[in-house]
């Protein structure tokens, strides 16, 4: 982390210098064009200390109450915090999971719970979530509710999301979580995390193990 920060700072510094030289100070809030991390972790990490699932009671895509802990009990479960007005990482993550999930035997597909919790509940109504998730996999569960509740749930599993901010130009700035939480059907605890660079192949390899509660 430190190393990555330093690299980023270095790049930002160079960028800032360049910008200063160009006299475009008005762009100083822009990041460097590309920030490359020096160290990378495993795409799917096994946690040293498993975590409890977030204790979230929210509303599903049918407008019904959904108790995350209660309704995923005994099932291998994937939880991701994201939002539908997201052209890049959120659909990529959910599509990666979808493609990998379809490679599982039918019974295991039915056993698996994939839960998408919105980090932008104001825009992601049950209907909006239903439409968007339906475009990926109709079996995916979509949850919405009050932002504060969702944020507290995310915090309990060390996922940082921030309240969407509406800028003057009407643009809404939202955040998505960086990791996918994967829980074991054996003890209902989160033992694994899918990092943002986990692709289809990583999930395809990991899911057959995880659905059995084994380390990938």
């Amino acid at each position, binding site marked *: 982390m430190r190393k990555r920060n330093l690299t980023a700072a270095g790049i930002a510094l160079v960028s800032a210098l360049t910008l200063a*030289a160009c006299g475009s100070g008005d762009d100083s809030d*822009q990041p460097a064009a590309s*920030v490359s*991390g020096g160290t990378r972790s*495993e*795409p799917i990490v096994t946690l040293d200390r498993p975590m409890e699932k977030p204790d979230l009671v929210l509303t599903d895509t049918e407008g019904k109450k959904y108790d995350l802990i209660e309704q995923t009990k005994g099932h291998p479960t994937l939880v991701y915090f994201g939002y539908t007005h997201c052209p890049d990482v959120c659909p990529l993550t959910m599509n990666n999971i979808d493609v990998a999930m379809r490679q599982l035997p039918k019974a295991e597909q039915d056993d698996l719970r994939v839960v998408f919790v919105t980090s932008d509940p104001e825009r992601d109504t049950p209907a909006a979530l239903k439409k968007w998730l339906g475009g990926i996999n109709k079996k995916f569960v979509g949850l919405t509710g009050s932002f504060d509740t969702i944020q507290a749930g995310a915090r309990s599993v060390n996922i940082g999301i921030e309240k969407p901010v509406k800028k003057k130009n009407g643009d809404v*700035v939202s955040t998505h979580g960086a990791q996918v939480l994967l829980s074991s059907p054996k003890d209902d605890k989160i033992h694994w995390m899918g990092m*943002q*660079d986990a692709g289809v192949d990583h999930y395809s390899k990991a899911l057959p193990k995880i659905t059995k509660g084994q380390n990938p």
Partner: protein
Amino acid sequence: MNRRTTLAAVLALTAGFALAGCGGDSAPELKVSGAYLPQPVDQSMAGAFMVVENSGGTADKLTSVTSDLSDDVTIHTTKNNKMEQVKSLDIPANGKLELARGGNHLMFMGLKKKPAEGQTVNVELHFATAEPIKVQVPVRSATYVPKNGGGQGGDKAGDGGGSGHGGAADHGSMQHGGSQHEGSMDDHAQHHAEK
């Protein structure tokens, strides 16, 4: 040799500053490569990625984008998992601007149709200085990530377009499995043409 390289670097740096500082007379020379648009979930929005290389001695900026896919195309950055619209993105002299998964991207809102894998989207990039560039952007699968980039497995700084976010490390208190691999992720980037 070393000394010469250093000197050359210093000269290049000075030249770069000088040119950038006074507008310069060596025009930016831009080339676009590796463009793709992942098949979107629905018709409401799509993102696109590419690399704009500048072999000229003057920096430029990507200032706006037009397309036959949408009348509302904006330029976005992603910092700490937070996506934000920006007015422009810099293309450094003798450098490149990377639009990659998890980072900078073009955002198309209110699509005229839902692009399907195998199709092409016409995009025109507009710059502060250089002439506009027309790019035919191929629509790839929703899970497509280029082999050398896209915030994925690139090992070399500046080569992989590393996203700079996404690791548990960003959240401080995360427990890692302990295995930190450096430079072993070549087989890591995904390439999925089908779903």
